[in-house]
């Protein structure tokens, strides 16, 4: 049973990560720095619970805010570059943060045991959950409470005028600007919100694995973050969740017996999906069809 709870935990964590990229992607910006923002939340929240013996909840919020601040600072130079150049710039920034943690030492001795991040060795013994006697199921539930809150917040934001403003910028930033939308405010806000969510996810992730190191937040993680909203489509948040399940459960677990072939298939499947479903797994058409089923009427195909 623990295997399924573990699955549930991973899907929850990656949903948070995917939604952090989703918000930024709505404004047409591809951020490859999400793993970096996540690592800031992870390290800071971990240090707060381990070294400062703080409770997890405030530590998570501080981790999220710290990541948001850094994301806000990244958001400004990101305004000057677009498209592929932004991808390169954010990759560079993500790597910069990773290398920072690789060289980051801050250990204190408590009862003969050294605690805290130790450069390349990573940050071990983030034991808030085991110390408080949480079972795998408890942790899975906790992750999903956080993920649920993030999903609800992003969904609600998406439906409000703010979400439409983000989308307007993503569709045509020149037209958006001419319609009176302040691009700087919108793009930087999106980065900040995305950074906060990634930081929040990272702080949960650190406590869930109990051991983090710089390699957890490399370009593979950054790619995962951006793959989910791209694969799931930008119609609404459920596409991202669906994509997480598709990748983490179907591609990575169900195909596990295939061994090395799996990696090959992983790439191939993503190409197939992008080709045959260019608007993502959960496009506007699919969404309106589902809505049609629930409201008991036939929906036209022109969604």
């Amino acid at each position: 049973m623990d295997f399924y709870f573990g699955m549930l935990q991973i899907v929850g964590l990656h949903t948070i990560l995917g939604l952090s990229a989703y918000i930024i992607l709505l404004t047409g910006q591809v951020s490859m720095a999400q793993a970096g923002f996540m690592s800031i939340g992870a390290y800071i929240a971990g240090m707060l619970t381990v070294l400062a013996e703080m409770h997890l909840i405030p530590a998570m919020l501080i981790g999220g805010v710290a990541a948001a601040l850094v994301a806000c600072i990244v958001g400004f130079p990101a305004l000057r570059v677009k498209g592929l150049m932004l991808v390169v710039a954010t990759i560079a920034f993500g790597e910069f943060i990773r290398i920072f943690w690789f060289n980051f030492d801050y250990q204190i001795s408590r009862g003969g045991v050294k605690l805290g991040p130790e450069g390349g060795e990573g940050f071990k013994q983030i034991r808030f959950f085991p110390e408080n006697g949480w079972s795998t199921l408890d942790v899975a539930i906790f992750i999903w409470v956080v993920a649920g809150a993030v999903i609800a917040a992003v969904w609600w934001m998406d439906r409000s005028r703010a979400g439409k403003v983000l989308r307007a910028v993503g569709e045509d930033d020149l037209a958006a600007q001419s319609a009176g939308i302040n691009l700087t405010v919108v793009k930087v806000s999106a980065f900040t919100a995305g950074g906060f969510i990634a930081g929040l996810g990272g702080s949960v992730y650190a406590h869930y694995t109990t051991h983090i190191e710089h390699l957890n937040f490399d370009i593979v993680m950054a790619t995962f973050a951006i793959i989910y909203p791209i694969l799931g489509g930008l119609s609404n948040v459920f596409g991202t969740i669906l994509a997480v399940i598709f990748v983490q459960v179907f591609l990575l677990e169900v195909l596990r017996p295939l061994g090395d072939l799996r990696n090959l298939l992983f790439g191939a499947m993503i190409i197939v999906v992008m080709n045959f479903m260019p608007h993502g797994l959960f496009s506007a058409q699919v969404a309106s069809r589902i809505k049609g089923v629930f409201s008991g009427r036939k929906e036209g195909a022109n969604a």
Partner: protein
Amino acid sequence: MLEIKTLSKHFGGVRAVDELDFTVRQGEIFGLIGPNGSGKSTTVNLVTGIFPPTAGEIIFDGRDITTAQPHVTLDAGIARTFQNIRLFNNMTVWENLWVAQNSAEDKKATNLLSRWMGGSRKAKSQVEEYLEFSALADKRDELAGNLAFGEQRRLEVARALAAKPKMVLLDEPAAGMNREEVRALDERLRALKARGITVLLVEHVMELVMEVTDRIAVLNFGQKIAEGTPSEIQNNQAVKDAYLGTSGD
């Protein structure tokens, strides 16, 4: 209302706009015409702040907007449409207008949070009014990208209106329209004027320009070669030469 003073824009060695002077008066429909590449669209882009001028000044309503960014010029009261329609295609007609409610008045009326959440009920009801004005009320939930060409042009004008402008710059609103649509546009322009909105009309369709405008400025190679009422322009030799290509400058 809008004063353009010795405005220039050079792209490398090209003088797209060269020491241009003209003034648009409050409440009039002012036409800006000229052959292709004469600098009309560049002028619109300069006024709305898409790029800064090389030299010169732009004063609107007593406010210097020479180097203001697009959202600031909108805040000052200038809204625009684009020559090649630029709508938010994957958003509904209604949403296109909803996100465009960025007038200084709307910003002042509600706090930031409620603006982000959706704006006031009054603002939302005004969206319906713009839909009505542009004869798009029955298309409100249609995606903008799925509209017919003429409808998209009307939606762009409606989106400009949603910003409660004092002045609108329309960049070739009649391009690609048939005769009937042009006549409807003519009426809509007069309706804008009746609402007290000043119009700067950049247009190639001469029947419309001559019919609807109060005054016209003619550009050629970035310079103003004539200014006056439609009848004056029609009888101006320099304008005839520019359009027939008999004179090089």
